[in-house]
């Protein structure tokens, strides 16, 4: 087991290095100069600009710059943003809690709702509940998140005036009233994401349960005289959840991707909004850092999924 985990980690580390290289190469080789915004002030004479570029090491060949970037990353230095002239690290630290709050709550709600829905749907197959739940799941992952967001804004912000449609990041929680304001402004972004998560996970849970229900061990459990509740919860659900757990882990990076869209609609000042804005501004250090963070997220959750799968299912051989 220990060796298996070690092997997966040893695969994950070079993967991250290669991805960081690819990300850097794309930024460096792009025909649009990612540094064109830098010192774009027309009052700066071209020779001064050239001196600045040289002094910053921007004229080095890009593999050299890549090595410098990576070794700086190793010291925890993500560089300085071209736009705000503050360290990239502190920009990300400001934004990350907003994203984590919205994405995290939405994902937890999604998982908590989806597993019982998928389970009941599978046990009562072809019942009214199953039809409603399956249709809802289909709708949930076919409707683009930006359209759900827009519909929610039209219905709840504009027509009913229940929730604000712009997220106020300066809101400080100091009493019950401001806590409710925070809840009110978070409801719509969280709903949009949770709807999508619930739909995907519920559909998957249902399919897994249906695979397991006709198996022999279920019949054995029933013929032992176990109550149906015990058969479903202790036997079928436990086995069906193994692949679901991996799906939940694998889905987390995609959820961060979805947050890019949601943050854009509701103007949540999170890491996705920072990415879209930095791309527009040509703020290369921020873009490179966020891409790397996303890559690390994907690789780590793939690793977690692999390890969880092996831990939960003793039939998996550790190779």
């Amino acid at each position, binding site marked *: 087991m220990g060796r298996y985990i070690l092997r997966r980690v040893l695969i994950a580390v070079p993967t991250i290095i290669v991805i960081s290289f690819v990300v850097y190469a794309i930024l460096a080789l792009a025909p649009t100069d990612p540094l064109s915004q830098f010192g774009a002030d027309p009052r700066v004479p071209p020779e001064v600009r050239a001196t600045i570029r040289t002094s910053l090491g921007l004229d080095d060949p890009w593999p050299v710059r890549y090595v410098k970037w990576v070794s700086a990353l190793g010291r925890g230095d993500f560089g300085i943003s071209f736009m705000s002239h503050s360290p990239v690290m502190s920009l990300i630290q400001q934004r990350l809690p907003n994203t984590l709050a919205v994405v995290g709550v939405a994902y937890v709600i999604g998982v908590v709702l989806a597993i019982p829905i998928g389970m009941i749907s599978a046990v009562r197959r072809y019942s009214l509940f199953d039809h409603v739940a399956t249709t809802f799941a289909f709708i949930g992952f076919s409707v683009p998140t*930006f359209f759900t967001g827009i519909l929610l804004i039209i219905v709840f912000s504009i027509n009913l005036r229940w929730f604000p449609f712009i997220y106020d990041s300066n809101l400080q929680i100091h009493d019950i009233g401001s806590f409710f304001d925070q809840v009110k402004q978070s409801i719509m972004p969280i709903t949009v994401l949770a709807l999508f998560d619930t739909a995907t996970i519920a559909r998957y849970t249902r399919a897994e349960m249906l695979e397991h229900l006709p198996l022999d061990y279920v019949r054995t459990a029933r013929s032992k005289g176990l109550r149906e509740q015990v058969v479903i919860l202790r036997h079928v659900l436990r086995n069906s959840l193994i692949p679901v757990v991996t799906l939940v882990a694998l889905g987390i990076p995609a959820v961060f991707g979805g947050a890019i869209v949601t943050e854009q609609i509701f103007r949540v000042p999170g890491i996705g909004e920072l990415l879209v804005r930095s791309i527009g501004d040509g703020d290369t250090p921020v873009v490179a850092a966020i891409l790397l963070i996303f890559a690390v997220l994907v690789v780590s959750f793939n690793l977690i999924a692999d390890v969880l799968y092996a831990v939960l299912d003793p039939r998996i051989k550790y190779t």
Partner: protein
Amino acid sequence: MAAPAAEITKSGILVTTLTRPPRSLWKDAWWQFRRHRLAMIALGTLVFLILFTLIGPLLYHTRIDDIDFLLSLKGPSSAHPFGTDDLGRDLLARVMFGGRISIAVGIIAVMLAITLGTTIGAAAGFFGRFDNPLMRITDLFLSLPVLPLLLVIIYLFRDSLRSAFGPELGIFIMIVGVIGILNWMPVARLVRASFLSLKQKEFVEAARSIGARDRRIIVRHILPNVLSPVLVAATIGIGGAILTESTLSFLGLGFPSDVPTWGRILYDARNYLDIAPHWAIFPGLAIFLTVLSINFIGDGLRDALDPRKSS
């Protein structure tokens, strides 16, 4: 189905034979598919949507770029069934035109992804020596953060492709290309897994023993057996590609506003939700209905093509 024919054989046993013309695999699949009610409704909806975007503009003559400020942000009316946008342009015409591009992007991007995925998966599954390197590359691509990377690539390469191929074709090539190149991995895994198990089968051995070359075995013998899961993946992939294109356009990094794809219309509409909600609702509904129908059709195809299920 023909009536059962009963006859008595010489030994005096009554034998009932069901006579029915033999059905090919595809006819059988179609027969199965027709019984999936939701998939049939979805197929009808999708055919309607495609005709709406292809034939609609031939019947509905309003141009997509006629600007009329007197009519700006008007709701649906008999002259403009879907209303107008901030420049007074007719939204029905724009939604019809945009659908052509959105659907074309979906289909072509998936064709690219399927071609890449099948080739790589077949090579990895059939030739043992390619397996490890190709699967490492597949894993690497699966670890890429797709949406952020798409945004960055499009931002960086947009201008040069635009100048090389013209504003519309350049963006089209780029969006189709990046969606295709970042989505072949699931197909490659699927094809590889099927190849690994199929190449051990007797029919492959039989083909080899009569002297068939690798190329012929792959194309004529193994590939047809992999077709149905690939077809299901392709169908669902088209929905995914349409969603990706709309998402990119919605983030302002897809097509420019003179090429009104569904996502782009929504992007333009998002600041007028309070006074002109119709502007966002019609293109949004179009995306939603298209993707929903495609997903239902994919589901129906999966049931119809699954040999374990057909009776």
